[in-house]
């Protein structure tokens, strides 16, 4: 049999892109040929890990300046929404974001279809939140990776997606109603697009169907919920996390080089809130620990960095998390799972999307502290860090979770399952 070609199509975010890298590394070792379909601007990322890339052709003229303008516009428009609660964000953030996602799917369709005809993959791995019809129509098995929180797959016992609510919260129905109202026109537009491309419409609020072949979920057992309707075991596989192999990170020595290591990353988007990170750094200066802070592309916004703090524009996250005693993050699902994978307690400070769901789950399952971004005081932040560093019972529990997750080897399991659904030629 020829080596099977597996096309990965992650969404344009680091979380899902690097999650797919983890699976592709294992597939490659098993003799498959993973290739990546990538959005403009991700060119080179997968190549650096040794994978062939195919860039989606640009459908509109998107020069550098235009992209920079949209980025700045995005920051200006949305930064103030980051402190809103999830219900208020439905209108201010979630609706506009779904609109943009639908635009992306429509714009990518033609280029994606012709690329898939050229590559002729044996299977396609889609790590996204929306279906691109060219994938469903490619005539080969497609695999859905749910790299968001488990809430992405609805169930009466699971809180509504992006709500940050508990499953039985009385506010549930009001949230669901508001969500459906705001997304209705966007959803109708998406369903019309699907119809044109020969796909069945999806139920209200849904933008991506489950795969009839295989669905891979990251959510580890320790944070999973008891579902009212069990997911069919033959097509739903839980990976117990999925962590890529990454370059070794040697924490640079700091002028004050003592104490536990605390890593802070709010993801590439969260780094735009330089005021918040700046206020946190002021507190870090007063706390006996070494802090490594991911400030994304905004290093130039910081001056007079304290002697126990190091700022970087990028860290090979698995490696630094593995060496950390505490991880402060935004509840992005990769960060959430990596903290568990390495047995590190979290302070979760979400600002949007499934970060809210993971923030709540952090508190519910006792794996860390859920802290609101805008209402903490320096004393509360110090207290949160000190209590997690001293909580030996939590650390032992996290170590057990970590051992189970490492033993489960989620990315290898994903690779096995993907190869299983490829028809023998």
């Amino acid at each position, binding site marked *: 049999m020829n080596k099977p070609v597996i096309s990965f199509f992650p969404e*344009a975010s680091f979380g899902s892109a690097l999650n797919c890298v983890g699976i592709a590394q294992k597939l490659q070792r098993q003799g498959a040929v993973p290739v990546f379909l990538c959005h403009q601007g991700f060119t080179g990322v997968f190549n*650096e890990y040794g994978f062939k890339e195919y860039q989606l052709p640009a459908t509109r003229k998107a020069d*550098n300046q235009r992209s*920079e303008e949209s980025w700045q516009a995005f920051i200006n428009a949305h930064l103030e929404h980051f402190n809103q609660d999830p219900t208020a964000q439905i209108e201010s953030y979630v609706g506009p974001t779904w609109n*943009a996602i639908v635009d992306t799917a429509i714009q990518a369709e033609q280029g994606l279809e012709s690329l898939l005809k050229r590559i002729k993959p044996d299977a396609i791995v889609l790590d996204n939140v929306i279906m691109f019809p060219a994938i469903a129509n490619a005539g080969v098995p497609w695999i859905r990776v749910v790299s968001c929180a488990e809430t992405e797959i609805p169930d009466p016992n699971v809180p509504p997606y992006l709500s940050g609510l508990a499953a039985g919260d009385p506010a549930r129905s009001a949230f669901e109603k508001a969500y459906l109202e705001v997304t209705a026109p966007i959803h109708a537009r998406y369903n019309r697009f699907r119809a044109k491309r020969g796909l069945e419409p999806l139920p209200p609020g849904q933008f991506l169907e489950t795969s009839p072949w295989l669905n891979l979920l990251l959510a580890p057992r320790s944070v999973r919920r008891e579902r009212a309707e069990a997911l069919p075991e033959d097509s739903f596989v839980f990976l117990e996390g999925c962590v890529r192999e990454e370059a*070794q990170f040697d924490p*640079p020595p700091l002028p004050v080089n003592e104490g536990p290591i605390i890593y802070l990353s709010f993801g590439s988007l969260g780094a735009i809130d330089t005021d918040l990170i700046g206020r946190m750094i002021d507190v870090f200066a007063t706390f006996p620990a070494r802090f490594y802070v991911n400030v994304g592309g905004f*290093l130039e916004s910081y001056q007079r960095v304290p*002697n126990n703090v190091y700022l970087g524009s990028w860290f090979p996250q698995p490696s630094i998390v593995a060496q950390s005693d505490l991880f402060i993050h935004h509840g992005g699902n990769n960060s959430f799972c990596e903290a568990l994978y390495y047995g590190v307690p979290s302070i979760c400070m979400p600002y949007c999307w499934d970060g809210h769901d993971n923030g709540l789950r952090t508190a519910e399952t006792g794996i860390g502290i859920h802290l609101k971004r805008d209402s903490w005081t320096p004393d509360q932040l110090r207290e949160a860090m000190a209590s997690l560093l001293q909580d030996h019972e939590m650390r032992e529990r996290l170590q057990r979770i970590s051992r189970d997750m490492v033993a489960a080897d989620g990315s290898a399991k994903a690779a096995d399952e993907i190869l299983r659904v490829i028809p023998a030629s």
Partner: protein
Amino acid sequence: MKTRSNTRQNHLKLARQIVEIVLERGLTRGDHLPETTLSEACGVSRTPIRSALKILESNDIVQRRDEGGYFLNQSPEQVGIDGVTQLDEMEGSLAARILSDRAERRIADVQSVSALVRRYDAPRSAVLNALKILSADGVVAQLPGRAWAFQPLLDTPNAIAESFAFRLGLEPQAILAPGFDMDNQKSGLLRQQMEEFLQRSDGNMSSVAFLHLDCAFHSLIAESSGNRFIRGALLAHQRLRLTTQKDHSIPDFRLRQSLEEHLDILDSLERMQHQLAADQMVLHLRRSQIRKPQAANRGLLPLARKGMA
């Protein structure tokens, strides 16, 4: 006018000269180092010799005895390796700390000597000496008045992108300029170090160790160039990279690929295929130039990157 930092540097130089005399004359541990002999050998009076001996004493290289005078306190092998390194560090350690604090944005880009004296709790002469070392590398410049200004460092993604553009312009030219001459012993040693690094398993390839090897390779290319100006500019730039570049983002695959590209370039240079080596250098730098994109979140296209060809 002679400043205190000048004097300090001169004493350090003398201390090094004394070390050389010790090695040349085959002195051994316990041998007497008479001030008069040293003063004649170095062509200076006994006062600076005494200061230089004090520096050596503070590093345990010599010992002052009650019976009078200074005696060698280490074996010649120790003096040759550890002693020289200690003196280098004495000269460079404060400079390195200042540079690293600037690269990590702990201190502002304009500094007064008094502020640095307070921050590092060091004598004014030591701070001036450190600034002098940094200014020789083009890292700081004295402003009119008493302040010193840091020059751009490789501390942000934009600065790194500009560094690549600069190197893409100059490094192939360093190879192509008439008179390129590489030290075979150095290239052989470097080749061996890179091959050893390639033997490491994934996950054990330290990014800091890689940066050292990478800078050593590109510095070798620079110093082999037949064009003195290209040589000077690139060597200074590589020193700046080594001390200030912050980039821990390179996956193991690219680290390996990058080292293999270095070895290919060395192969071509050893075969005197300079044009091919220059082309390989362009390819190597372009591949390394591909930066992590600044990605937007769900549904938004990531920001197109700067510095892409």
